[in-house]
């Protein structure tokens, strides 16, 4: 028989205001096994924990139930408390009477009754708890960063500086990500390339960093501290070691019809290309879908023109297998599809562009060499209209429900840069709200309005069409004066919503990391563990977790790196003892459990068992507790009921059901 202590927390007034804590103590006092019950204002406080420790020693308790907040919050705390008092930490159960009771119910009688039942269920479970011993696993002291944008680069640099080897896997031929495409950055207006490219070079030259560019993660198995990752290094048909980045081949390539992704397809590039001049690694790459050699077997001009002999048409995809202790996801974002917003004529008129396209047009290395031109006739525009929240903050199936966060600021930046460089151009901005929280952000926006006379119009645009003069007419509303507005303009710039990169769903599935309804990766706790995924050993960096600007991305990348370093600094990890276990006498070796196990943790051995005095060798299931994650799939699949899960055993759950239904 267990000797159980029940500790009811008031959580200040969070619980005590709705649950009669004295009544709960009174009600559970005579439950089977309970030999001590008390309540206290803050159980998680030093004093509260001291109280638990004293009670364990004084009453010689073998198990405790804490009626408090969610086990996701303080289970670990109270387990540690129990351990300090000499009790096995797995003899602790939490009755969640805050999140699941006091916070959602108003009626005190009802809430108290429910709290008593939840406490009884936990007591019934503890009665069947057995002391468990956690296992240990080793930590591979190497980190993987998926994505080589500013988030990935920063995380990798911080981890590498702490002394651990890091691999960056980047799907495109160069690292740099979206930031490399930007012209200037708000609110300081410094040039994006000037602050990013030194970091790219630093990453490439860092002795602890290894960059797999033009590569993708193929498969991830294992668990925290011991991930086995397969990386596919796509064939770029150029020997990375030989190529000097002289770019002779890229200039000579005759296949020039395809769009240049780096410039948002506003101009073309060759089939062999270097994405941009400061690319890292500065190595050419052949796009086999466009290359004449791969289509016809002829051409080969690049091969002939390469003095280093780097072009190799026979190169094959390569699979690299590597072990990692921690993984940082820094997959970033993409511009959402604006072709759905047909009323703005994006697909029909070349003068309707997205903000990222404008960014390339304004950039000195862009398709117009930095001169602001209409894409339709390459003439200087007189008027430009910006439309905010295209695809953000909406509730139709075309829209994202969230705010993309960066658009208000980059539009103010664009407006300001245009007015600065071309004072003759009139700039109008249609907005729903202007959101500028951030250091020096509102001052920046105000400068755009007050100093640069940008015309901000509160209201949305309904329609854009090409008028008889060949210009564009924008029809919108001005909500402040409550009238319809028709503006003739030369260019329309859409502040398109940002969304997680394509393929993040695939990566999340491989990592068993959860994503929300918008495909952003979810954090382990929205406030207290914002850079960790609920999956142990997986960390989040940058926009893959939610929209954010560069300073925020960099801070989060650093935070994720600290968490990785904290993990890699450990020599051994404690593994959860809540793993499956087969009862030797009941197992008949049917292999059903093996087939449902997602981790391959089950194998079979021939073992001599003593079945009521009869000794025989049987084939029975064996669970590798280092691989078992404790999901319990096997326990239900087992036809003979031989499999059980420690910590969530059949008897324990049945006891909880009993206690609740009593």
């Amino acid at each position: 028989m267990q000797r159980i202590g029940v500790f009811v927390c008031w959580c200040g007034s969070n619980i005590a205001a709705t649950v009669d804590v004295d009544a709960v103590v009174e009600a559970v006092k005579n439950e089977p096994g309970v030999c001590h019950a008390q309540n206290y204002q803050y159980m998680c406080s030093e004093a509260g924990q001291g109280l638990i420790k004293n009670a364990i020693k004084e009453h010689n308790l073998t198990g405790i139930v804490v009626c408090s907040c969610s086990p996701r919050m303080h289970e670990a705390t109270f387990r540690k408390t129990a351990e300090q008092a000499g009790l096995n930490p797995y003899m602790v159960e939490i009755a969640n009477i805050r999140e699941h009771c006091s916070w959602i119910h108003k009626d005190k009688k009802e809430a108290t009754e429910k709290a008593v039942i939840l406490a009884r269920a936990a007591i019934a479970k503890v009665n069947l708890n057995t002391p468990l011993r956690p296992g240990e696993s080793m930590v591979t002291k190497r980190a993987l960063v998926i994505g080589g944008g500013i988030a990935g680069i920063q995380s990798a640099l911080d981890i590498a500086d702490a002394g651990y080897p890091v691999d960056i896997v980047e799907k495109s031929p160069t690292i740099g990500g979206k930031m490399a495409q930007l012209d200037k950055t708000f609110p300081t207006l410094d040039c994006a390339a000037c602050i990013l490219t030194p970091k790219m070079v630093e990453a490439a030259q860092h002795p602890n960093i290894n960059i797999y560019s033009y590569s993708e993660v193929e498969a991830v198995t294992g668990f925290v501290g011991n991930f086995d990752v397969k990386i596919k290094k796509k064939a770029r048909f150029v020997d990375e070691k030989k190529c000097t980045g002289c770019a002779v081949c890229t200039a000579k390539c005759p296949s020039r019809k395809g769009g240049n992704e780096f410039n948002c397809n506003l101009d073309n590039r060759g089939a062999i290309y270097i994405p941009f001049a400061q690319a890292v690694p500065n190595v050419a790459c052949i796009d086999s879908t466009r290359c004449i050699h791969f289509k016809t077997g002829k051409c080969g001009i690049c091969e002939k023109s390469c003095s280093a002999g780097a072009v190799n048409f026979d190169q094959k995809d390569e699979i690299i297998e590597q072990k990692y202790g921690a993984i940082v996801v820094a997959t970033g974002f993409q511009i959402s599809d604006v072709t759905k917003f047909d009323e703005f004529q994006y697909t029909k008129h070349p003068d309707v562009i997205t903000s990222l396209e404008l960014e390339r047009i304004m950039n000195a290395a862009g398709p117009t060499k930095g001169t602001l031109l209409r894409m339709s006739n390459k003439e200087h525009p007189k008027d430009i209209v910006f439309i905010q929240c295209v695809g953000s903050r909406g509730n139709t199936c075309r829209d994202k429900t969230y705010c993309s966060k960066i658009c208000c600021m980059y539009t103010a930046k664009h407006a300001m840069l245009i007015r600065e460089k071309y004072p003759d151009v009139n700039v109008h901005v249609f907005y729903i709200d202007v959101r500028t929280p951030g250091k020096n952000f509102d001052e920046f926006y105000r400068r755009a309005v007050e100093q640069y006379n940008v015309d901000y119009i509160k209201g949305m645009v309904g329609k854009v069409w090409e008028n008889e003069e060949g210009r564009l007419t924008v029809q919108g509303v001005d909500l402040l004066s409550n009238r319809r507005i028709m503006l003739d303009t030369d260019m329309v710039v859409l502040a398109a919503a940002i969304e997680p990169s394509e393929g993040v769903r695939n990566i999340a599935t491989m990592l068993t990391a959860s994503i929300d309804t918008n495909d952003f990766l979810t954090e382990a706790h929205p406030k207290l563990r914002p850079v960790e995924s609920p999956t142990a050993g997986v960390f989040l960096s940058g926009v893959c977790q939610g929209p954010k600007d560069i300073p925020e991305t960099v801070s989060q990348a650093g935070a994720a790196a600290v968490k990785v370093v904290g993990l890699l600094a450990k020599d051994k990890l404690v593994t959860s003892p809540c793993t499956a276990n087969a009862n030797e006498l009941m197992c008949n070796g049917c292999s059903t459990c093996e087939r449902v196990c997602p981790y391959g943790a089950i194998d079979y051995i021939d073992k001599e068992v003593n079945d009521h005095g009869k000794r025989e060798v049987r084939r029975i299931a064996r669970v590798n507790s280092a691989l078992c994650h404790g999901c319990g799939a096997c326990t239900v699949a087992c036809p003979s009921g031989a499999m059980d899960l420690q910590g969530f055993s059949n008897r324990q759950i049945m006891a909880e059901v009993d206690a609740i239904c009593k």
Partner: protein
Amino acid sequence: MQVSENTENKEFKPLIVAFCCNWCSYAGADLAGTSRLSYPAEVKIIRVPCSCRVNPMFILKAFEKGADGVIMCGCHPGDCHYSTGNYYARRRMTLLFSMLDYLGIDRARTRVEWVSAAEGQKFSLVMNDFAKTVTELGENIKLGDLRCKKQQD
């Protein structure tokens, strides 16, 4: 056997057991709590590591002990913390539901819902809706233990 005190003169309050997976739905329920989104106190949550840990026997056991409704919540298909657990759970529950007809339990008394850790609001809506459905169905007939011959009253 205990006789429910509520049935005679007070309005009927059903007894509902909710199995929630630790990673999504239990966290979703926590979020409902943090956001103060109420649902009936009749709903009592049992935490399981994954929806695939829910043995159909647990559900039958709950009905046997007098539950009026049992709901199982897990991560959305494709989002299982253990990759595939909720797929197993989904299939098992489909089989169980067809068996409930045979046992004479209204199928509306059981439900499977996918609630993510971010869907506190959905958790609250689902529980309100399920409690309403079960309340309308009224008190459940207790499943008798077939091994027990003696009639209990």
